[in-house]
Structure formats: C-alpha cells, structure tokens
C-alpha cells in the first residue's frame, strides 16, 4: 500500500533546514553575554529535533487513516492535560502553560493543536453530505470550544486564536457554507464589545487588554508592557537591507529584547540577516507551505485532504501571527514561530505533523489506480 516513490523529500529537507538554522541562531544568542539564554538551550532544541524526527518517521510509516480511532481518545486526554495545567502548571510570563516532565516541559496546548486537526478532519470527512447544515457546523464548533475555553482561562489569547484559525481553515476546505461562517463572524463581532468590557473587570484577563492596547500604542508604557513591541521593531529595523550578520554590537546583543529565544527569535534573525535574508527565509516558508498545500491536493480521500489543510492552517497562522508581532503588525501573544522558536512541545508537534503529511502522500490511492 505504501509507495515510497511518492515520498516528498522537500517535506523533510525544508523543515530540517529551518530547524538547523534556528539552532544556529540559538547558539549565537547563547554566546551573547547579556542574554538570559545558556548553551543548554540549543542543545535541548537539538534533542527535541531528534525526538521530533522520531515522531515524523513513526507517523510516516503509520497509515494516517488508522489515526482516526485514536484521535478522539487522545484529544480528550490532551484536553484533560490542559485542565491539569490550569491546576498545577508552571507559569511563564503571567500565563500557566507548562507541565514539567523532567527534560521536556510539556505544553499540552501544542499537541492539542495537531490533535484538533485530526479530530476535525475525521468529523468533517464523515459528514461530507451534511456539511451544508448549520447543525454540523455547530457540532464541529464544540470540538474547538473546549480547548479555546481552557486555553483562554490560562489565559493564553494567542493559542486560542490558533484553535479558531485551524477550525476556520478546515471548515472552509470541508465546504461549509460561507453564509454560515459570515453569520458566525457577525455574532463574534457583536459579542466582542461586551467581552471587552467584561475582560477589564477580571484581573486575570486584564493582561490581554493591556497587550492589545499597547500594540496600538507602545509608547504608553515604554519600559513595561510596550517594551518588547518597541525593541522588537528597533531590532528588526536596525537589520536594514543587508543585515548585521552576527557582527559585534548589534541591537539584539544588548539583551534589551526579552524571550529572544522563543517569541522574539524572528527579531534577532531579521536583524542579523536583513531584508534580503528575510525574503529568502520567507521563500523557504512559502515553499514549505506550498508542499503542504500540494499534499492536500494529492490526498486520495477527503480525510487526508482535510488533515493536510488543517496542518497548513496551523503552521501558516502561527507563522503569520508570530512574525506579525515581531514587526508590529499583530499584538504580542505567546505564539511560537514554527520550527525556529525554542520549545520542545511546539517543535516536536510540528515535526510530527510532517510525518502525517508524508503518510498521506505515500498512501494516496489515486495514483495507484492510475498506474495499476
């Protein structure tokens, strides 16, 4: 059933290239005296990459269709873990997101993203005939509502937006009526002002408001919450057209950026490689996402097609929001830059999803019939 000639080497080479580049940048950061990053960061990242490759390999060999029965139980488990995080997670930068598992601090919201893709792919592919009904749309929303609620409570606005983005992308691919989506959007718009007012009254959610207001006007609190918004743009901007290429005395070496190994790694990269380099980096991302889109096109069944497009939405949305916040296009949220940001859960999940894509390619039946 497997057809190795369908194996897409680009789907391995492109992510690996990005991961390697990311580790190189992390090593450079760890050598700067003012940074809070130690050499153990790139070492761990390399370890996570190896673990991620392991998952990628396993899932390549595993028939993606056989994932279906596991999807819902696993998804339930991971949602349970998300609940656990709320109770005993480690807090980082004001939000409880981590469970400590020794070497790997597990951030359950990362695998939850991928599992949501699998669950939704199963759900939509089984209801292809009833996809135009409002009831189907409403039921599918339930799968998203639970993690969104849990993650929002952490509180982690960015990650909940990723869940919503995955749903929107997959719903569109599954053929949900645009009128249904439009109605949903309208409801959200109507609820937003009310939610905004309520948020201001709950201390836990006030930080989200802060972040959004500061995104609109960073100078309001230049040494506090606006700090990263200002410094990330100065850092990116001082890269100029050609970049600084890891020379001495660059802006990122001043250590003024925080979480430069995770949320703001793009600022460091952009200062070093400049606009030309950023264009090349974007070209790599585009090539990668195109390969994923190709999987969606090649997939032999609607389940595979939906899986691929869900993974595409997941990676593309996160990339957009993360880079966007580095260049003042998006509010600051804790969303990692896929394959480049330091973080085991995110890296392993992303690499694992490439295994699923490969599995879809190896088993798409259309060609089998065409040849045989």
């Amino acid at each position, binding site marked *: 059933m497997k057809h190795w000639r369908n194996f897409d080497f680009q789907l391995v080479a492109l992510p690996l290239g990005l991961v390697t580049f990311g580790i190189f940048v992390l090593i450079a950061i760890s050598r700067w005296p*003012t940074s809070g990053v130690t050499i153990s960061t790139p070492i761990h990242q390399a370890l996570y990459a190896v673990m991620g490759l392991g998952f990628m390999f396993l899932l390549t060999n595993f028939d993606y269709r056989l994932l279906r029965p596991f999807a819902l139980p696993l998804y339930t488990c991971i949602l349970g873990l998300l609940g656990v995080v709320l109770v005993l997670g480690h807090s980082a930068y004001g939000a409880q997101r981590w469970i400590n598992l020794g070497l790997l601090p597990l951030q359950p919201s990362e695998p939850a993203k991928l599992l949501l893709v699998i669950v939704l792919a199963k759900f939509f592919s089984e209801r292809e005939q009833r996809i135009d009904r409002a009831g189907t749309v409403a039921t599918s929303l339930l799968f998203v509502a639970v993690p969104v609620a849990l993650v929002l409570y952490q509180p982690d606005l960015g990650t909940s937006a990723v869940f919503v983005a995955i749903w929107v992308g997959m719903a569109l691919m599954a053929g949900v009526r645009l009128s249904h989506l439009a109605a949903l959007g309208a409801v959200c718009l109507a609820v937003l002002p009310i939610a905004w007012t309520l948020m201001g009254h709950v201390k836990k959610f006030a930080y989200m408001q802060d972040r959004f207001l500061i995104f609109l006007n960073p100078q309001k609190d230049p040494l506090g919450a606006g700090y990263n918004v200002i410094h990330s743009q100065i850092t990116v901007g001082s890269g100029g057209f050609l970049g600084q290429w890891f020379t001495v005395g660059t802006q990122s070496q001043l250590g003024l950026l925080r979480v430069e190994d995770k949320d703001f790694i793009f600022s460091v990269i952009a200062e070093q490689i400049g606009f030309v380099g950023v264009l090349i980096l974007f070209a790599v991302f585009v090539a990668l996402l195109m390969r994923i889109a190709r999987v969606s096109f090649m997939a032999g069944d609607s389940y595979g097609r939906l899986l691929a497009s869900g993974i595409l939405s997941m990676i593309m949305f996160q990339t957009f929001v993360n880079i966007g916040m580095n260049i003042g296009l998006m509010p600051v949220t804790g969303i990692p830059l896929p394959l480049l940001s330091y973080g085991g859960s995110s890296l392993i999940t992303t690499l694992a999803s490439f295994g699923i894509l490969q599995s879809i390619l190896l088993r798409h039946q259309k060609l089998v019939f065409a040849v045989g």
Partner: protein
Amino acid sequence: MRKKTKFLLLRASVILTFAILAGRVWYVQVVMGSYYKQQADTSKIRLEPVQALRGIIYDRTGLHQLVWNAPSWNVMIVPHGVPDAQATAIYVQLSALLHNQPSAAQIARIVQNNQWRAYAPVLIKRDVSPDTAMIIKQLHSQLPGIRADPSNIRQYNQDPAFSLAHILGYSGEITQEEYSAARRLYPAEHVGATDEVGQAGVEAKMDPYLHGVNGTEEVEVDAGERPVRVLRPGKTIPGDSVYLTIDWNLQQAMSRDLAAALNHIGLSRGVAVVENIHTGEILAMVSLPSYNNNWFSGGISAKRYAALLHNPDQPLNDLATAGQFPPGSTFKIITAAAALQTHVVDANTTIDDTGSIRLCSVYDPSACQVFNGWKPGGLGLMNVVSALAHSSDIYMYTVAGGHNPMYPGAPYVGASRLGSIARLFGLGSLSGIDIPGEMPGNIPDPAQYKDSWHVGDTYNMGIGQGFTLATPLQMVNAAATIANGGTFYQPRIIERITGSVVPRKGVLRSPTTIQPFVPTIIRRNFIDPGNISLIQEGMHESVDLQPAWSGTSYLTQDARIDAAGKTGTAEAPGGAHAWWVGYAPFNNPQIAVTVMVPNANSEGAYTAAPIAHKIFEDYFHLKPIMLTPGATNWLGDVSIQLVGAAGGSQ
C-alpha cells in the same frame, strides 16, 4: 467550489500571507531602516549586571565575621564608549592616573579582547582608592568610556599567623573558563563576566551558596557609556551566610601557640587540628606557614604571588588536608586495633620486646636483616596496652608481619588486612571535607607489589613507615574514632548555611536555614567496643603511665586535662616528622587533637606532645603551666639518639 479552485485559493492565501509580512518587513527594515538603526545607535538604555553581595562567612558561634565585604571602587571601561581617534590618549591618561598599573598597552589589550561585547563594562582595576575614583569621575569629559563604579571587596579576618587562609581561601575575578562553565549552569542574570568568585578554600567550595543572584539594572548612559540615570534598579539577592565549625577564639589561641612553639625551636612548618569527637566538626585547624589572603582580594600583584610560589616552605599548601606524611608510630593505634579485631592478639597476649627482630630469608638463612625497636635493650614483655604506652616497635612488627623467631607460627594480621582496617579508619582516601585540594594519603596494597612485597614491608607498615602516608586531618579523624568508641564521623568545616539562595534550585521567598548541621556517620562498629577500650587504655597510659613520665606522651601529662594519645616520630628525608595524636579528657572525651611538625628532626614526644598540651589548655581554658620540672624549652634537655633507617620510632 471545485477542488481545483479550493487548491488555488489555498496557494493564493499562502502567497498573500507572506506578501503582507514581506511588505511590512520592507517598511520596517528598508523604508524605516535608517530611522530604527539610528534609534538603536542612539538608544542609551543599557542593561547592566549588578553583582549580588557575596555571603558572609562566620565562625561557629556566629559572633565573629571571618569574611565580609568592604566598599571599594572599581575602574571599568566600556569599549563602545571609547572613540577610536582618542583611544590611545585616553589609555595613556588613565594608566597614568592608575600609576601605570596596568600600563596603557595592557589597557588597550583588555579593550581589544572585549570588543566582542562592546557594550559591557570591563574591569580595568579593582579596588582603587576613593581619591582615584573621584578624579576619574571629575575627568569624565576627557575620559569617555571610562567609569569608576562602586563595588565591594572581600575582607578576611586574620590572626598574625594568617591561620584562616587555608580554610577560607580567597576569591577573585571569574576566569573565562569559570564564566563559561557558570553560563552553562545559570542564565545570565545569575553570573556576570566580571563577577568575583571563590578561587580557593571555602570561598571556592561554597561559591554556589556565597555567590547570590545578580540583578540587572536598566540604566541610561551618556555618549561615553557612563550611567547618568538608573531607569530600573537591579534586584539582587545576596549570597547565603556560611557558618564554619571553626571556633575563632580557639583557632587564634592555637595559631598563636603553634607559631610560638615553632619559633622557639627554629622551624617554620607545623600543623594542628582539633576535632569535636561527637560530631566530626573541625573546631580549629592551623597549617603554618600561611599567607595573607587579603592580598588576593582585588587581585594579587605578580611579585607577591611569585614570592608565595617560590617560598621553600610553600605557604600556599595546606598541610592539614593536603600534606601527606608517614604517620610513624601514631599508626600503631591502627595496627593495635587491627591485631585485636582480627583476633591475632587479645588483652593478655604478651610479646617480648628484645630490642630487635632478626629476619632471615627462607631460602638463604645467612641473608638476614635486623629490624630494631626504638629502645636498643628492649622494653621487655609487652601486651597491647603497654605496647601502645611505650610505643613498642617489636610488638607491632610481630602482630603486623609475624615471622618473629621467638614466636614461630604465631598468627599475624598481614599487610592486606592491616590495610583494610586502616582504610576503615579513613586512611588512604579523601575525607570529603569541604575544602578543595584535599589529598588522600596512601595505604599500600601488597597485591599491587606482588612478589616484591616482603615481611619487612609489613613491619614498616605496622609502625606507619614505608609506603604509608596520612594527612593530619586523617589522623585526627582516626583519634576521634577511637575516642568516641568507634564511630567514624565525616569531618566537617561547614557548620550550617542560612540565606535564601539554593544553588541550581532557585531562590526562597524568605531567608532560612538552607543546610542545617547534621553529623554524618561514615561507619561505625567496625572495631569491637572492647578492643577500642584497650586502645584507649594504651593511649591513656602513653600519657599517664605511673611512675610519672614513663609513657612516651608524658609531656602531655596534666591531671587537669587527663589526655590520652600517641606519639609518632616518622623517619623522613630532611629530618623526622614529629607527631602527636590523641584526645581528652580520657573519661569523658570531647576533642581529638593532632599536632604534626614536619622535618622537626626530633621526636613527637618532645616536639609535638607539648604543643598538644598547650592546645588542650587553650580548649579547656586552663592557666598555662610548665610540664616537666626544670624543662625550659620545648625540646627539654633530653638528648635523643635517633635510630637507623630500619629502626623503629617512638
């Protein structure tokens, strides 16, 4: 929608997404690039590390600070703040202000080596006078890039003989290797590139506790990189307080007495250690000569350091923990314990000390070697107690190696069992005391020597000669083990640690006792209590045998103290080492004492024992008295005949 249309839309959305991002990056990097670059260049906000105050080291009472921090001024340079055109002139002017220490060329080299972190202040000179600091501050317009920063410097409490230097060690600026190692363990805010860290002694060993957690302050700097305004002060967490087991009063008294005694006999080297026998706490530990560790604070001058290194007496060496010497007859305590424990002898077994043993080859009866005891005519019939009291070599040879022609076929301990029991007493291995650089000594393993190990080697081992080496710390542990009835405690120099920094774990909300003192038993009951009390009795008689002054330790005989002990005169190139190892009081032991004078060229009985007596007087707060009637100096007027190389020792 058709599948193909969807796919096209999908691809279009990818392109669109990155087009938006690229457009914005174009705006930020290219359109606004020079604006942001200028912002970056004129950004005068700097994050600067603030070193936490190092922890204080106290003596066991907590009443005496042994190390503290004194305010001082450091001259720093920020490479980025020095204009290239004026650099040489600035270095020359600065060097002149610092009295050419360092020279302008050296400053230039320091700057060159730190160009890779051009914004970080680099240390040029530690601990300059307040006057120099003020001049540098006033000349700020002429000296861009140069700063005088307030700092702290370690101050070490010392007695005139600097007896604490080996224990406390010293601290100094972090080396590149130490910094790299620390950066692997801790994020940047914990350890800075110019931090002061422990380099020797407790300062080094306890550095993770003493160091504290650095802070980062956000400062606005002027064009010359000098701070003009603190935007956000750095929050530092001071290092933990470390309490030593040392009793500062006893340490000073012991140091004074040891120095006086050595001065009297015209020697410069000597060691004394006092241990609490119930806990393993080291109450006082002196190794002379020592050095002034305050010289190391702020960087020792090359001249002083060379003088210390080339001093033939090696003042940087800690003889107490790192000096390895043949223990001589003090080892007979171990030999006796081994003989009793292996049932080679019991309390009633007697051996006739005839003054020598003639050991002949089994193959060639004419090839013989004579092993002498210290007393040429012999000591007569000896049991284990009197053998210790009189330090009978013949008894120890016989029980250790057998083959005494007078007792053919009698059982003996043998080198391998003797070695095993010596190791149970902690000899031949590191005690694990919290002072870096400890040495293990040596207990020979006959198996390693195969056929070249002879009965004579076992004889020598039985009297602590030959290949056997021990540190004074190991011998005081052995004495403490005998004194407390057979429990070998881990010797400790750290009493307790209080504060809020838990190394590699984090910082506690409020200061507390991080590491309380808990005596650690390494092993116990490895010698039967009955056997221990026989050895105690032998050591007691060594001091207190009647008629007065007939035991070898008689120079410690003092009814007010009632000590028990064992002398040792260990043959060594450069003159015999004089040892005394013991404890007091005999009936209710409290402390064990070891005194060792290397190359005293005299017997333990005459050199080491009287010093031990002085230490007991210090500990029990007794009025000093003369011991031997008519004795006016440490050696007394007894002339001693040292026996030959194969001879025994007292």
